[in-house]
């Protein structure tokens, strides 16, 4: 039943659409209640294929629309809206200029080279889209799979021509119906580190795959692999539940509702094999680059827990003390706690405590064994001799948690009388008014932390194909060695210029060390102006370098 006026003039802002003929409507009618219910059921069953056939009394005054779809495929944007004129509005960038992203909190105040806050991105941005159109609705146009293909371009490598037995086209895992059912994820089954299990995944375990139905209609998915399957079952998001079998005589098959997200666990029949000469290849990074790992990682404003989620951790409390013995030796009493969240194995490891020479400590080393879920707390008795040199020292409580893996907490001890007395203040300063706090820091100096960090590079200007370094001088004013972690931070679009953004750094007690971070501009890089800064983290302290201009010249 057509509307009283064309839909284009009825469908306007603030429209009152309550009238029976305000917009076109489909009327479902029956002579009595039973017939009406039968008509509704018939229409509902027709909807299963997305189209309902109805008789139109009189298309006037409305106009029939063409069965045609236009889509804009994007790389991902903050938002969009279509207005009543049919115009499509796209928001391209979104930046927060208020608290907390628009202000800087850790002294000294940092800003981008043009003086703006770090969420403002005052440079040229390229946006790429694909405009697609064709007959039929979004399903016939495969918009879901075409969108995914646009935003996930195929990874291409140039390889030499070579012989071999493998076919020109090969698929280790394939799903049908192609495009209508999407393979979203493939991984080894299980998440041992999330549950505190000590046994790592091995490649012989079953695979978890996640499928999504992309057309909105029920489909039957089949999975294929040259390895063959020995079994498969449906599971849940956590991959642990074993539901019904999806396997029958070598075929893995599952029914999907429209838009269903399904998790399957597959048992491959064979193993990929591969070249035994290569041995077990570790893909990616499997342990923290900077060792030892500081156990109070949150103080480094570093985001998630270290790799492996620290199932066994060590802490010392308090973390900072002033040793004020005066003419006599100062006694410092702290408490060490080691806790295990492993669920299936005892933890056994060695705890060692490193103190400055001439100081005495009990314990200096202690073997630890903990039952699953166990913990222990014991005192750390430290004696700082009366002739201890004034300054900042670090007592390092280190727990070996695996081959090459050390987790540590650090007790900072200040012997007053040096320039670093403010590193362990006697009391907290006055509370800063809320309105002032909201403005962020205005300080031009960093806090007294015992490690002075000078940026030796004022600007990096490189042509495509050229390489340079971002250099720093680290001056350790403390009486103990410092081991920390650095991370180079730069905006999206520059990440492939910094091949190794994370590394460890070490500076011996009372000495200086230079740190250089390689910056290499790919040959195919586009010219532009960005910035790069480095965040230094050690023993619960953080220092951000200035943001150094990073300029890629045109060739």
């Amino acid at each position, binding site marked *: 039943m057509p509307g009283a006026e064309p839909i284009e003039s009825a469908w306007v802002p603030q429209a009152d659409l309550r009238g029976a003929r305000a917009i076109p409507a489909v009327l479902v009618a029956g002579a009595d209640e039973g017939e009406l219910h039968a008509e509704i059921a018939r229409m509902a069953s027709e909807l299963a294929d997305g189209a309902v056939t109805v008789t139109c009394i009189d298309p006037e005054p409305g106009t029939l629309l063409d069965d045609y779809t236009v889509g804009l495929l994007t790389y991902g944007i903050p938002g969009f809206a279509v207005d009543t004129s049919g115009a499509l509005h796209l928001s391209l960038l979104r930046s927060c200029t208020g608290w907390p992203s628009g202000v800087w909190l850790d002294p000294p105040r940092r800003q981008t080279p043009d003086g703006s806050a770090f969420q403002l991105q005052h440079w040229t941005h390229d946006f790429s889209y694909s405009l697609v159109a064709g007959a039929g609705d979004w399903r016939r146009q495969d918009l879901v799979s075409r969108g995914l293909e646009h935003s996930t371009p195929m990874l291409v490598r140039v390889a030499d021509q070579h012989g071999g037995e493998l076919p020109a086209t090969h698929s280790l895992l394939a799903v049908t119906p192609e495009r209508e059912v999407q393979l979203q994820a493939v991984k080894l089954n299980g998440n041992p580190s999330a549950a505190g299990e000590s046994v790592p995944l091995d490649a012989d375990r079953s695979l978890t795959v996640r499928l999504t139905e992309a057309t909105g209609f029920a489909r039957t998915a089949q999975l294929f692999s040259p390895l063959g399957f020995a079994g498969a079952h449906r599971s849940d998001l956590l991959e642990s539940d074993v539901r019904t079998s999806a396997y029958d005589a070598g075929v893995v098959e599952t029914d999907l509702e429209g838009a269903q997200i399904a998790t399957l666990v597959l048992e491959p029949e064979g193993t990929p094999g591969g070249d035994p000469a290569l041995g077990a290849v570790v893909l990616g990074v499997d342990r923290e680059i900077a060792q030892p790992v500081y156990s109070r990682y949150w103080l480094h404003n570093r985001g998630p827990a270290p790799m492996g989620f620290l199932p066994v951790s060590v802490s010392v409390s308090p973390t900072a003390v002033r040793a004020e013995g005066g003419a006599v030796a100062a006694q410092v009493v702290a408490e060490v706690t*080691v806790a295990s969240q492993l669920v299936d194995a005892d933890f*056994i*490891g*060695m705890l060692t405590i490193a103190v400055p020479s001439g100081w005495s400590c*009990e*314990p*200096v*080393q*202690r*073997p*630890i*064994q*903990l039952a699953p879920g*166990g913990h*222990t707390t*014991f*005192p*750390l*008795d430290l004696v700082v001799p009366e002739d201890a040199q004034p300054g900042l020292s670090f007592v390092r409580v280190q727990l070996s948690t695996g081959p090459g893996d050390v987790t540590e907490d650090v007790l900072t001890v200040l012997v007053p009388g040096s320039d670093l007395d403010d590193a362990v203040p006697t009391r907290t300063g006055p509370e800063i008014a809320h309105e002032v706090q909201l403005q962020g820091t205005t300080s031009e100096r960093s806090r007294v932390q015992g490690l002075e960090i000078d940026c030796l590079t004022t600007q990096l200007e490189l042509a495509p194909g050229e390489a340079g370094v971002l250099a720093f001088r680290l001056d350790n004013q403390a009486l103990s060695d410092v081991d920390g972690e650095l991370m180079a931070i730069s905006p999206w679009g520059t990440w492939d210029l910094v091949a190794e953004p994370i590394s460890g750094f070490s500076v011996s007690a009372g000495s200086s060390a230079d740190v250089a971070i390689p910056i290499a501009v790919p040959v195919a890089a586009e010219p532009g102006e960005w910035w790069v800064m480095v965040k230094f983290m050690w023993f619960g302290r953080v220092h951000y370098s200035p943001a150094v201009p990073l300029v890629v010249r045109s060739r």
Partner: protein
Amino acid sequence: MTSDAHPLAEPARVIGWVDGQPVSLDLLELRLAVLRSGPGAAALPREGTQEARQLRRWTAHVLFTELLCLATAGRLAIADSAAAPLDALSAVQLGSITAAAWHGCPAVGAVCRTLFPAAPVAAHPASARPPVARRWFRVSHSLTPDGDVLVGSLQPMGWTTLDDLPTSVADALRDASRGELVGPVASPLGWHLARVDDIQDRSAPALVPDLGDQLREFTLWLERRRTESLSVAAGFEHPGDPRQPDNSHRH
């Protein structure tokens, strides 16, 4: 709780009704004046702001809670004995309004204790005996990968119950006497050599009764009491009531 007009409505002077009795606005103003002249005054929200109106509502509900408990205490002739201050966990379990009432008015704790007496500490067979003393060992220790250990390399390890040491080392030390050298003993870490330097028997800490069940029952009772016997005047709704205009979540 409703904010509909009450038969005794005197909007300007009454903030609510407890068991049908009007609660005077003067009482609330007095409370707020005490708060605003107290040591924490600097931390209170400025007058005229949304937060100040929320503080006003919060204080009103502390007052209501006290009056509800006072009425019950009067009816049941419960004596106002000073209640023990709440520990941090119990205060969080009760919520800020009830916790503030507990600390401001002895009747609140007295009603809780009388209506919901603490369950006796579980009569577990073990607790019938006096607290068991734990044996602590002060140990010196050294570790080498190959068992080639020198007694001179022993270093103090501090006090331990032995429960956190490698099982083999703990088993060897458990029966050792003071000054006795134990080892070399193997563990996954290597070879251990150890000596007990001192032994102490320390009593275990006394059991603390769990307040959780008692406070839960009290909270449920208080909720029932509020539903049945409290009505509030417009403007004095609970600060967390989503229907009142000042309870908005903003960034």
